[in-house]
């Protein structure tokens, strides 16, 4: 538990909390970008360089931009006059707090049984590439197909409906 971990963890949690709590959607999108960046730093601090940089590329480079585009296209930056929280917000908060209590209890009560290797794993990007085209080649192809289908599907779903084509 180094000070660096505490700083990055505080940054990530603050970004997540701000994303959920801020009223303005554009501010929330910026805050969630901070949370994504903090998660990438956490991955880097876990010696997972490939996952960390993939996180930066995919989440900060693509998902955050997509969110900003969706806000732009739905006029989401206008504040609603009747509040940003749902009518059943208390129930949602209680469920989330309950889930956190259960997860935290499970982690803390099993802490002594968890393995704790301190040696840094000697895994390079080269090993990951070999594994991706070797043992994991079928999932890789399926993900490629899924991404193609999802991109085409997203375009078709969001495409402007022609008059009378309904």
């Amino acid at each position, binding site marked *: *538990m180094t000070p660096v971990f505490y700083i990055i963890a505080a940054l990530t949690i603050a970004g997540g909390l701000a994303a959920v709590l801020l009223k303005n959607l554009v501010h929330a999108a910026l805050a969630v970008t901070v949370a*994504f960046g903090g998660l990438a730093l956490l991955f880097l601090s876990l010696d997972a360089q490939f996952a960390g940089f993939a996180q930066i590329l995919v989440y900060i480079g693509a998902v955050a931009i997509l969110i900003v585009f969706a806000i732009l296209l739905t006029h989401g930056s206008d504040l609603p006059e009747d509040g940003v929280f749902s009518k059943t917000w208390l129930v949602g908060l209680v469920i989330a707090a309950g889930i956190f209590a259960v997860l935290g209890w499970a982690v803390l009560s099993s802490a002594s049984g968890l*393995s704790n290797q301190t040696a840094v794993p000697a895994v390079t990007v080269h090993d990951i590439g070999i594994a991706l085209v070797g043992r994991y080649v079928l999932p890789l192809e399926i993900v490629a197909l899924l991404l193609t289908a*999802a*991109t085409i599907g997203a375009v078709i*779903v969001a495409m402007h409906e022609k008059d009378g084509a309904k």
Partner: protein
Amino acid sequence: MTPLTGYLLVAALLFAIGLAGALVRRNAILVLIGIELMLNAANLNFIAFWRYGPHPEALTGMMFAIFSIAVAAAEAAVGLGLVIAIYRHAQTTDLDKMNRMKG
């Protein structure tokens, strides 16, 4: 507190924050942001268990996290496309006002 416990607690807190966001906010885009936070918290768990597990050279947790990132990107694209389509149809992204399935 061991490092693994710290990472798992951060992931649990982030998951709870994302779940709270998905449950209490009215805007559909914010709900998607909450779901992204939950997916990211799960990824953090995978990477943490990979790093502190007994066989990091097997790359299992790392691969799961990478595929999870790819699937989350596809999910974000389709989800935001749906939000835009619903906005075009109902002129709102307020989930409390979307209370009918008829078009």
